[in-house]
């Protein structure tokens, strides 16, 4: 009887000592934790959170660096709907995203699957596919500007080998945007390939082997084992691709400046020109808000499509 009474008492006192110790320990941990975290919180607050909020507020004003400004309500937004430059920019950006994202995701997944087949020279292939990604977009754009040169560029030189007539590429309204898309796809493959490759290596070998035993074909294995296992990674790649394609700027700025005419005008270029050439900061902010909304819609739709795909 006495022993059974003693034991819980001992245990309890021991616990409280530990708890007390843990208490002071936790307190000093919490203090250190906040001290370590505060600089990052301050930095992100000043340079990200405040700007995001400010964009919403600015979009309701006619601010333009001057001393006086006034609230204009949704005036900027209604002006945007009548702005042909903005309409062209929005349309081209959406088109760019709709074409570049699926093609580059499919191509990079295909290459990643190829590289995942225990091939020789994996280091070489990985480097080759990733080099465009580590190269500055300005440098990439400069190189392709020369490739697309109508007079003596590589693109026409290559076509002439097969007897095709030279093309004016960036100067031709029909091919300008397409030529930019090619560069966008070309440069963006590397990151996606590496992410897919890492994910493919995590696909369960057991599942693949048991599918083998069940006599599944290569396509069935891909469709029913590999693809579902890639689900979360697909979503990550999709989001980063959407955000990335909507940001397209350097490429357009160096290669076409939005021309010929407005054929390659994209959103960020339009925002940049409105804000820093015409100094219409309120107007440019409203444009930014619309870009945010379109990105959110894209992410939402992408998510729905992927859900539907994994459920069937």
């Amino acid at each position: 009887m006495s022993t059974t009474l003693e034991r819980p008492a001992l245990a309890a006192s021991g616990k409280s000592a530990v708890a007390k110790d843990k208490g002071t320990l936790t307190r000093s941990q919490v203090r250190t934790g906040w001290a370590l975290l505060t600089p990052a919180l301050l930095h992100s607050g000043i340079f990200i959170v405040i700007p995001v909020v400010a964009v919403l507020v600015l979009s309701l004003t006619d601010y333009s660096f001057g001393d006086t400004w006034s609230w204009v309500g949704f005036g900027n937004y209604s002006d945007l709907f009548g702005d042909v430059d903005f309409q062209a920019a929005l349309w081209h950006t959406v088109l760019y995203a709709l074409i570049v994202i699926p093609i580059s995701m499919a191509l990079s997944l295909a290459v990643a699957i190829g590289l995942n087949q225990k091939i020789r020279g994996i280091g070489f292939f990985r480097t080759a596919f990733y080099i465009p990604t580590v190269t500055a977009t300005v440098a990439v754009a400069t190189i392709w500007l020369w490739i697309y040169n109508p007079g003596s560029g590589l693109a026409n030189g290559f076509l002439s080998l097969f007897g095709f007539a030279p093309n004016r590429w960036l100067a031709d309204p029909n091919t300008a945007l397409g030529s930019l898309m090619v560069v966008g796809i070309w440069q963006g493959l590397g990151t996606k390939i590496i992410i897919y490759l890492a994910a493919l290596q995590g696909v369960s070998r057991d599942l693949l082997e048991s599918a083998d035993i069940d006599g599944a074909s290569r396509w069935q294995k891909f469709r029913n084992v590999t693809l579902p296992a890639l689900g979360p990674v697909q979503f990550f790649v999709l989001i980063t691709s959407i955000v990335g394609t909507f940001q397209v700027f350097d490429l357009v700025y160096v290669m076409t400046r939005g021309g010929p005419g407005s054929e390659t005008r994209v959103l960020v270029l339009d925002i940049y020109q409105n804000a820093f050439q015409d100094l219409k900061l309120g107007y440019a902010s409203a444009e930014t808000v619309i870009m945010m909304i379109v990105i959110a819609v894209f992410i939402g739709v992408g998510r729905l499509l992927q859900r539907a795909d994994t459920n069937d």
Partner: protein
Amino acid sequence: MTSATLPAVASASTKPSAVRPGRILLYVVLIIGALLMITPFLWMVLTAFKSELEILKFSWLPGELRWSNFSEAMQTAPFLRYFRNSALIAIGETAFTLLICTTAGYALAKMPLKGGKWLLGYFIVLLLVPFQIILVPLFMIVKSIPLFGGNNILGQGGIGWLNSWWGLIIPLGAAPFFTFLARQFFVSLPDELAQAARVDGLGEFGIFWRIMTPLIKPALITIAVFQIEAAWNGFLWPLMITTSDEMRPLQLGLAIFSQNPAEIQWPYLMAGTALATLPMIILFVFAQKRFVEGMANVGIKG
């Protein structure tokens, strides 16, 4: 059990030995793909050696290797200064990022903070905010940093951090992406190490600085490599906030150089582009593992 393992073994042993047409096709396709990736760079290097006359017509190889193109390109624009500026920005941003993001990453991963989950969520949400969205207000904030560039204490009257190293380095450093990356690496360290150090009487900050941080050295290199690349390749922000050649980085210099298509001297421009590209390609070749690891960590565990 045995009946289940036997076919698997059999199929595994037959696969690699036979050279199948599918395998050859795979190599052919991959090699063509790799060539498509590399050819533009090859074309850039070949053009850099050509003369003004040679580039009037399409050709692959230069008649002779004109190394002088490189030194002459350096003289047509202040490329050396651009190089120095890019290097300064890259070093500054990387140092700032390492300091801010490893501390924050550690706190998120190992410290029992109230609402720690929410804090982590906060950084993940910020990670998704594209820079282009905050462009306009960020410019205004940087312009009105108090007591800099002729500003008063309320941040008015001057240019703040515009056209300054502060403005080029601080706002774009310490991106939430790197805080998240650092956190991912710290999370995988066992808590017992910290416990043992605590028993030895080391303070919490000492544990972070002397025990845990040295253990994630590979992660620090990964973060540094990514940040160097991002800083070196930056364009839009320097374009917005610099007004003189004094502080312009390389990418901006290249873009200015190629602004007037009618007057571009392609061999010089390609020589300049090759020099601008080379450091990052070398960095990637040497730090390939770090890049791959970093991407995998964010993409998979994220």
